[in-house]
């Protein structure tokens, strides 16, 4: 791709990729680092990357970088999650906050698959290309994620 096309990619996709990474990591500074790193990698290979595939390339790169960080930072233990949950029932004012909290409790692969599906409208096949998971796995993860979120919302409503 040309320099102009690369700059168009920055304009078109930086916001959405930043949102995707930030939502997954819940760390603004680290998300910014990943965005910088992602676009730097694409710039290094911009002559070989097709402009039509740029968005997929960016998401794939950001996803794998993000996953490495998630694996390095081990998630909270289940006991800690349950303890945290019991103290936060009274803090939610609307559904979006509830969903936001619920999403963070999903495993990384389910969370990423669901975000790519809902935020970007990717198909199972496209998510497969980005994450390296099989389309059937992606479908299972999304189904499981929706079940979990529905159960979480239901639990909150029962308490409130």
């Amino acid at each position, binding site marked *: 791709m040309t320099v102009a096309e690369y*700059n168009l990619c920055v304009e078109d996709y930086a916001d959405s990729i930043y949102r995707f990474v930030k939502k997954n990591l819940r760390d603004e500074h680290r998300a910014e680092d990943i965005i910088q790193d992602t676009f730097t990698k694409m710039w290094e290979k911009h002559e070989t990357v097709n402009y039509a595939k740029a968005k997929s390339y960016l998401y794939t790169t950001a996803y794998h970088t993000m996953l490495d960080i998630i694996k390095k930072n081990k998630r909270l233990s289940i006991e800690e999650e349950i303890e945290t949950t019991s103290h936060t029932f009274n803090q939610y004012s609307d559904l979006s906050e509830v*969903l936001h909290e619920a999403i963070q409790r999903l495993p990384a692969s389910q969370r990423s698959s669901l975000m790519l599906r809902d935020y970007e409208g990717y198909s199972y096949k496209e998510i497969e290309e980005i994450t390296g998971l099989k389309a059937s796995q992606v479908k299972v993860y999304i189904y499981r994620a929706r079940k979990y979120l529905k159960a979480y919302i239901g639990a909150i409503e029962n308490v409130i």
Partner: protein
Amino acid sequence: MKKIHLHNYKEFAIDYMVGQLSAEEMEAFSSFLAEYPTIANDILLFETEAPAERLATKSFSHLKKEIAHQDINEDNFEEYCIAAMEGDLTDEATENLTIFIGDHAQRHTVKVQYEQTKLVPEHTIYQHKDSLKKTERRPLLYRRLITTASTLTAASIILFALIFVLPESGQTPITLANNTSIAASDTTPQETPQVLKAVAPKLLENNSTQKSVAEAALTPTHKKEIKKQITKASPTVTKQKYSTPIVTLKKREAKKINLPHPTLELDNMALAQSPPELQAGKHIAVEEDKNILRTQTRKLFYSTVLAQGVKSINRMAETELDYDVIEDEEGNPIRVIVKSRFGEIDRTLAQR
């Protein structure tokens, strides 16, 4: 049942996570995970429930079949709700789902709850987009032409803006505004601007004789002052700012040589900065080789920094090159290979 090991455990891992392993397979896979705790941790990252709470009763296998032909019931109703959200149902199946929900309030609530799990993207802005963007690199010749044209334009503007009175000859004193006459070489720093004013109009005239007389009237101090004025009037010529930063190449642990400022000392770059083997005297045999190597190294340096998008070599840049010296049986260097990130020069040395 086949044995689970490192080369086939992934086949069982997915079924393990979705609760589709038989009791025998579950036992075997659990033993495998106990043997490889690292793999067990990785799988744990992808699970929501503790292993003991795996939902073995729920299965998605029926979704592999054509959904439209399945009867909707309480057991698979939630899967149908999710499938409807994901657009995975045929029109007929969607209609069947609507009929199944009917006026049943609880079922309607469940469907609504699933619809609420649809994430709505928030409006997020990445603030540092400008730092990600790149600019087009102009060809070197184009940049030099622009610089030269800017310099000439600025010089012409300065000369036209000043008003000078030309002395009749190099020996004729210069008449200042206060009607005093002094020789050009006698001017004090305070009088220099007046001297320049007196000389400048003659420099711009087409009469080459008067022009050369005017130039001869200027001392080196006056010429320096004119140059200073030119510099001041065209700051963009000498103080260009480059959006593309200089990239310092990664350091190599192997033998390396630091190149000094290219515009000052590159011509003087000597083998004194080269690795010890070359300094010891057992090195390039003839002067010609030294010069050729120096020139080739300089070319490599220029191509290196320009490839990085540097617009000018007026800024300090550090480049580290590797030298590989290949010796013969007697320890005499016969070949030198100069390497950088952007290429290498392979030079066979003249033998003594």
